[in-house]
């Protein structure tokens, strides 16, 4: 018995996935029509007007995800404007990560933003050449970038200038084999398994989470206007 697919039965989940996000959003009746040109994202347009020389290119990824490539040396300026401008208000930094495409291509730092008031998402990317893996920290804009940037530093070796506490976060503190998510990192690591086992057992687990260290740590401050909130000199709420 074959399933009748021609008599107006609703599309299955497989059909929706195969047809992509256009079909799943608009429904089956517009699928056969030529795809309409998507109106430009207002944020991307405004960003291009505000920073004409720092926004290199933009593209739409996976149907409806806007990606903007910007100049890495002006990242705090651009992200600060996206955070503060009344029409943008990207107040939630969902993720900071990086991509290594290998083959000597530059590493990409990826900032995934979300605007809670406008319910809009934006992905900002910076390309860093392999000989200059440095970028300004955005912990002054979003305090939550602290651990995300530590993770990128740990796994990709990108240094964030001005980061308050740039240490490894996932790998052990005494890890000496490099940055594991780089494309040129051997899958099993650089040292022999015996050396890795020996080094692993020389670490002291209490070094990571001692209550005294947490007590001595300068508390993070958050200011209501979202200004710079990096140090202890702020008078904002203590988290």
């Amino acid at each position, binding site marked *: 018995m074959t399933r009748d697919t021609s008599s107006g039965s609703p599309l299955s989940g497989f059909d929706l996935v195969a047809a992509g996000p256009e079909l799943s959003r608009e429904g089956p009746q517009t699928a056969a029509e030529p795809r309409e040109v998507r109106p430009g994202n207002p944020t991307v347009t405004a960003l291009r007007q505000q920073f004409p020389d720092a926004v290199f290119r933009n593209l739409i990824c996976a149907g409806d995800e806007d990606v903007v490539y910007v100049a890495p040396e002006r990242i705090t300026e651009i992200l600060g404007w996206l955070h503060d401008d009344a029409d943008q208000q990207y107040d939630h930094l969902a993720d900071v990560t990086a991509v290594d495409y290998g083959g000597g291509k530059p590493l990409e730092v990826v900032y995934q933003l979300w605007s809670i008031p406008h319910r809009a998402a934006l992905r900002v990317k910076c390309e860093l050449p392999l000989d200059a893996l440095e970028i300004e920290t955005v912990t002054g804009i979003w305090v939550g970038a602290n651990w995300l940037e530590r993770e990128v530093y740990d796994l990709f*070796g990108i240094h964030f200038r001005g980061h308050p506490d740039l240490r490894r976060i996932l790998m052990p503190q005494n890890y000496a084999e490099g940055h594991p998510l780089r494309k040129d990192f051997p899958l099993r690591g650089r040292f022999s398994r015996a050396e890795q086992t020996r080094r692993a057992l020389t670490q002291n687990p209490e070094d990571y989470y001692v209550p005294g260290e947490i007590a001595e740590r300068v508390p993070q401050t958050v200011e209501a206007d979202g200004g710079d909130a990096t140090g202890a000199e702020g008078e904002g709420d203590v988290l």
Partner: protein
Amino acid sequence: MGLEKPGIMGAGSPAFLTTRLDFVVNWARRNSLWPMPFGTACCAIEMMASAASNYDLARFGMERMSFSPRQADVLICAGRVPYKLAPVLRRIWDQMMQPKWCISMGACASSGGVFDVYSMVQGIDTIVPVDVYIPGCPPRPEGLIYGLMMVQEKIRGESLANHAALRAEDPLAAGRPRAGDEEVADLTGPFGNSTDQNRVSGLVETDAIGRAEDRLP
């Protein structure tokens, strides 16, 4: 304690009293094993299911999961162990009182499983001595119960006559890997070369490494 000395029935043959005492002690030990659950991954879900009402580990004497290593008898390592967790596992094993046993539950704890990568311990037997390996990904609760019953069988065969030698621990070995370098290399050797990665020994660099700044001080 005198029990290691030749018994009253002659050298080499265990005394009647010793064997009867063995029976009583082993009976008590094997029927009151308290597991130390070291669950790090999906195997721990099956371990919890084993302790729940349907499978009910308490029937076999595992009356209570002992979350304090000092009151535990058998360490159940359920799940993958990354190198960052290796000193924790070793310390818990060192903190457990003798007599103690260790179960490696599942493929990852026993051999690293599919995680033949830079961050994962390739078998906890490089770190702690293991009595019983339970295969599976994850093993069903029946598998864990069978493994625990194998530990019970092992206890049944132990004797107070060689107890001191069997349970001897070098205090200086605490916190150190159980296996030497050659044994670690043997235990952790890759099964085939599916990932086409060259193994690197020591600090020798290979062609795969392009950047000098990868090497941290």
